[in-house]
């Protein structure tokens, strides 16, 4: 309610006197004002069963008839009986009387088909209520849908098509590159002739570079082993559930540090190390790097 509703001062004072909080008192006082306005305008208010008096025609007689029927219905038929008694239009758009007439007609047409039921078809048709309350269903529904609805597309053709393009692109790249660039093949292996420098494959050059600074057991065994184990354990000690970059600054900084460190070590080992694995400038001393 956007525009202000006036407070029914009398109700407000009463509620305050009863010790209600100001917030509740104000809300109820406003509600009282609205109710008074509606009554003045001749609108009906409140639940339907209570409104039975208002639409004059649907008489109290019906309601009275409903009561014993409900009782006869045994355990079940309380709630609907009251509602049916009101003579109000139900969900189907029919009044109770109309619906009963239909049911009776249908049963008559079927002959004694329904009479197998307890009490017989006619008796059933004459009852004032047509259904019984068997259970209360929570308003959320019986089935809970767990997974969120996500924005998804069919794998075929959307994903498969782009994968196919990627495959074609990679194949073309590898074939053309291989046709143009020759893979190295040096002279026959000779254990008595050590080339200078002797370098490991590029992905181990960061470790070979570390060999310059640490004992071989540290650089060649301890660091890679610990690095691998820590890498594997990473998801178990990064307890931060967020995958948003702004929530993961520490993780980003730490990971980027190691990534850049290993990249720098690999580049130094690859291009800036010459004979004797000594430091060289690649643009003056040439490249000592082979794939």
């Amino acid at each position, binding site marked *: 309610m956007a525009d202000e509703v006036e407070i029914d001062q009398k109700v407000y004072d009463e509620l305050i006197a009863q010790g209600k909080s100001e917030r509740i008192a104000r809300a109820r006082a406003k509600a009282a004002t609205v109710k008074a306005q509606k009554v003045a305008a001749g609108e009906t208010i409140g639940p339907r069963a209570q409104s039975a008096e208002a639409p004059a025609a649907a008489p109290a007689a019906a309601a009275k008839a409903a009561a014993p029927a409900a009782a006869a219905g045994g355990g079940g038929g309380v709630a609907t009986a009251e509602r049916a008694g009101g003579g109000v239009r139900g969900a189907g758009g029919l009044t109770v009387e109309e619906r009963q007439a239909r049911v009776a007609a249908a049963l008559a047409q079927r002959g004694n088909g329904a009479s197998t039921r307890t009490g017989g078809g006619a008796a059933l048709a004459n009852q004032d209520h047509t259904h019984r309350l068997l259970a209360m269903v929570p308003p959320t529904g019986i089935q809970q849908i767990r997974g969120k609805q*996500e924005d*998804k597309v069919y794998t075929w053709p959307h994903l498969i098509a782009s994968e196919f393009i990627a495959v074609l692109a*990679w194949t073309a790249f590898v074939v053309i590159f291989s046709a143009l*660039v020759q893979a190295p093949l040096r002279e*026959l*292996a000779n254990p008595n002739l050590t080339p200078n420098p*002797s370098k490991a494959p590029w992905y181990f050059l960061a470790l070979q570079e570390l060999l310059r600074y640490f004992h071989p057991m540290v650089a*060649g065994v301890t660091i890679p082993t610990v690095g691998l184990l820590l890498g594997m354990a990473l*998801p178990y000690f990064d307890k931060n559930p967020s995958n948003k970059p702004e929530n993961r600054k520490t993780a980003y900084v730490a990971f980027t540090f190691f990534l850049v460190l290993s990249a720098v070590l690999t580049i130094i080992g690859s291009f800036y190390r010459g004979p004797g694995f000594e430091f060289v400038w690649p643009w003056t001393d040439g490249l000592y790097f082979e794939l």
Partner: protein
Amino acid sequence: MSLLPAPDEVKKRVQDNVIWKSIFRPGSIYRKGYRDTSRDRALASMNNVLYHLHPVKVKRHGLKLTYTYCLGGSSFFLFILLTITGIFLMFFYRPTAGAGGQELAYLDMQNLRDTVTFGDLVRNMHRWSAHLMVFTTFLHMARVFYHGAYKAPREFNWVVGVILLVLTLLLSFTGYLLPWDQLAQWAVAVGTQMAGFTPVLGQQVQFVLLGGAEIGPETLLRWYVLHVLAFPFILTIFLAVHFWRIRKDGGISGPL
């Protein structure tokens, strides 16, 4: 009226053939009556052994090239390319070296370069793809990290991924020795020397790796078997787990 049936008629008859229908399961795009409906799209990926590595539906954001950069898939494709080119190379390569006998390994490398049809091209493809695969696998790992894609429930798949990275390095490194040239011999020498510094078991580790006290014919045979059989076998098993877990853990991660 021509004697030959119209192409449409041929297509219809082929697709109506009982053999054709036994090969292509319902929903296959090669079967008669494939229509571009939700049902047939779903069936097309469900009823194809390759496509059903994927779920029937994928998150739309995952299709963006700038989310995955296609790195995991590229690594996998390069592995397939390496397998195909590797099988080709196996026809022309014998892992035999020195020790008084013939230097068959190196001889075969020279023959591959000079006499085998497409031998040079296929060897180049094998070598460059190998380097590329190591590189794309590294990048894939970095991409997964930056997207936080290793977080619950995907922790274990990250572990499998690290194992796959190690296996990729091992595959590349064992393959490095096979040409049996100076480059291979000494790169492997540098690598295996480090293993000798393993605490307590250093000597034993190095001996197992080399099949002897130093790099020799036994090393070549050993690394050849590891390279063409053992590591690809193990890698394939872990790949299967890796792909399976992607689906089980709810498909691609994100969106961010």
